[in-house]
């Protein structure tokens, strides 16, 4: 047993550190560091730089542009990417639909979609949740009827993140209304330009346009856009959601925020001295750091255990990572808000939820705190994660 990185792993880490800081534009990394929303161009620019160096989709099969990395190398990659405030590759493409198509799609689908998904020539969004199907996702009602060799889709999807930029949407749709609810679901790929699709923005409490409602009115979808088998979509969705959760702890991001919080506290005056001189604040930061260190090692244990598991099968311990990871992300945004204090109040005139940056980025801190409340809700709420632990681990 040895928790240290090998010299090769350290060299790998150092090379990534250099690469991320020298190749990804500083202005984009600054926005990420300050927790600002990124434009479509920012995300595309960053992902294409990664893609040009073969680093956009390391988690994919090697045949489709993935890396033959050890779980430790994958962990280091994600960690260093976040620590350097590089935008994550677009989740919907890289961690969701890409792996599903690679694992369950037809050869034709792989050829058609995977290269463009990696390079972000196709921007995907996720059509899972519905107004009546949140935590109880399997109760979804959007239906697809087979007519003349096509699927005709009608219904409504909710919380469609960045759907305003999307070219395609991957959807869970009901193809058998008689079957038990998980059994009658299929996984469909739908072109967002199809007639009958309407996207309506939903502003979130931080004032940003991040999520949308997507309406489907008799939308025709070619039958070849079905992934895998009809009525097996729930299995693919579970595969996708468990993949999502292993990357969800965001330890590097929390470290980056703690580092920023320390700098802000040093630069902030309170009662005539530096706020960082306040031992209560420092103990609070230390307590968050301790929990984060523990989570980092828990994450490494999950990573190491993946070597013993089927590579395509995520570890159910991902629920622990989701709960603790989201709690710590929220704790770091609370910390930033409390350090910014009264200076967090002004919300400069903004357009589409994007504030103008000032020197310290204080204007973006309250929105970041507001927005971060979502992390214990999405990806299977933390209460759902506790249900999973109770049932899958504890047998209750």
């Amino acid at each position, binding site marked *: 047993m040895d*928790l240290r990185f090998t010299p090769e792993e350290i060299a790998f880490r150092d090379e990534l550190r250099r690469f991320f800081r020298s190749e990804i534009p500083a202005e984009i990394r600054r926005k990420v560091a300050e927790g600002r929303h990124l434009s479509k161009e920012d995300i595309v620019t960053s992902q294409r730089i990664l893609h040009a160096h073969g680093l956009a989709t390391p988690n994919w099969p090697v045949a489709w542009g993935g890396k033959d990395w050890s779980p430790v190398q994958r962990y280091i990659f994600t960690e260093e990417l976040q620590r350097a405030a590089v935008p994550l590759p677009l989740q919907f493409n890289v961690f969701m639909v890409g792996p599903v198509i690679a694992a369950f799609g037809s050869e034709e689908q792989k050829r058609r979609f995977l290269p463009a998904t990696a390079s972000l020539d196709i921007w995907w969004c996720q059509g899972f949740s519905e107004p009546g199907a949140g935590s109880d996702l399997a109760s979804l009602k959007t239906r697809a009827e087979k007519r003349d060799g096509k699927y005709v889709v009608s219904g409504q999807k909710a919380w469609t993140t960045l759907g305003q930029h999307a070219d395609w949407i991957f959807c869970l749709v009901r193809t058998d209304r008689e079957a038990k609810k998980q059994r009658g679901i299929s996984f469909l790929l739908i072109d967002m330009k199809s007639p009958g699709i309407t996207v309506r923005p939903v502003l979130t409490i931080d004032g940003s346009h991040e999520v949308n409602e997507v309406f489907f009115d008799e939308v025709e979808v070619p039958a070849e856009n079905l992934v895998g088998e009809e009525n097996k979509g729930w299995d693919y969705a579970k595969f996708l959601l468990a993949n999502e959760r292993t990357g969800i702890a965001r330890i590097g991001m929390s470290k980056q925020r703690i580092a920023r919080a*320390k700098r802000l506290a*040093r630069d902030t005056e309170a009662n005539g001295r530096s706020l960082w001189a306040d031992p209560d604040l420092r103990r609070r930061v230390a307590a968050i750091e301790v929990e984060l260190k523990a*989570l980092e*090692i828990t994450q490494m*244990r999950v990573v190491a255990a993946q070597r013993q598991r089927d590579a395509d099968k995520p570890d159910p311990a991902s629920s622990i990572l989701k709960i603790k990871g989201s709690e710590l992300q929220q704790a770091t945004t609370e910390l930033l808000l409390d350090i910014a204090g009264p200076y967090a109040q002004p919300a400069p005139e903004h357009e589409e939820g994007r504030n103008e940056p000032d020197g310290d980025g204080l204007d973006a801190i309250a929105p970041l705190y507001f927005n971060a409340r979502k992390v214990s809700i999405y990806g299977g709420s933390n209460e759902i994660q506790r*249900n999973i*632990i109770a049932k899958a681990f504890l047998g*209750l």
Partner: protein
Amino acid sequence: MDFDLTDEQRLLKDSVDRLIADAYGDFEKRKRHQSGPGGYSHELWSNFAELGLLALPFPEEEGGIGGGPVETMLVMEAIGRGLVVEPYLDTVVLGGGFLRCGGTAAMRAELMPQIADGTLTLALAQLEPHSRYCLNDVVTTARREGDAFVLNGRKVAVLHGDSAGRLVVSTRTAGARADRHGITLFLLDAAAPGVTRRGMPTQDGLRAADIQLEEVRVPAADILGEVDHGLALLEQVVDIALAALCAEAVGVMEDLQRSTVDYLKTRQQFGVPIGSFQALQHRAADMLVAVEQARSMALYAAMMAEEPDPALRRPALSAAKVQINQSARKVGQEAVQLQGGIAMTFEYKAGHAFKRLAMIEKTFGDTDHHLNAVSEADSLVEAE
């Protein structure tokens, strides 16, 4: 990075787990062990010796097993699961640690075999009535007289100090009360003239002693480490013991987690197992999260325990103890709450596990103490 055990480590774990399961699997047996002389079973202690556990940390060339922090962790986890009362931490981890890290060749040659065969136990007499968690707050004095030192002072809550054959004693040989310089460690015979011991049970079923030292003469040859420079050695060995305590706590928590889940599955109320209630399921899930976070930090503690640079080692062990303490408090309290009235009774194991966790929290630094240490070191996440 590698979390796998070697074949030898797996064998060690299997044999220790079997030994503890046999000796402690039935909780009634713990009471019998406690009624032995010194509050533990000498027969079981011989079994520990036969398995080589008492020679675990000693180098192979000195007749030991050459085990490191991972081996100690495996033993301590089993000790935690069984709520073992034998003086392993005091004799092997602490006492053995002082010999290994600061003992003279003569001491090692004489005492390591006696520890290994189970005839000698040790205890660390460090805590004083006013020192709390500060290892360098020492008023027990040692004054030089020829080639000996004469010790005076009082040590309290010396775990297993009533039965130990030798005592590691921290004393002040120079400087003021809390100076870091001027501390000297002695390995003294517990039966030496001038040593008065008053034994007592601890809250968690172990034994301790209040020890009075009055004009106790100790030859200079019994000094551990160097005169006036004993603190670094004391901190080094206490850090090794902290890692071991973290592992023990994980063992206790693991057992509490298991018994709680078993109880939720079998206890029927309102015509159903109470584990079918979501309010209880979520609390059990949170217990598991707390145990796993603690396990991660016990691994971290084991990895850092032998780090020679105290500037790296000490904050790491403090961070581990903070997490262990916080998880221990949560898991202990929740186990009692979820198992309900039965866990309040003296004959049931869970309440004793809860008590052991509460006392581990107070051993070598509580949460506030170690949180201060982590925040002062400020080394877990580098600032921008």
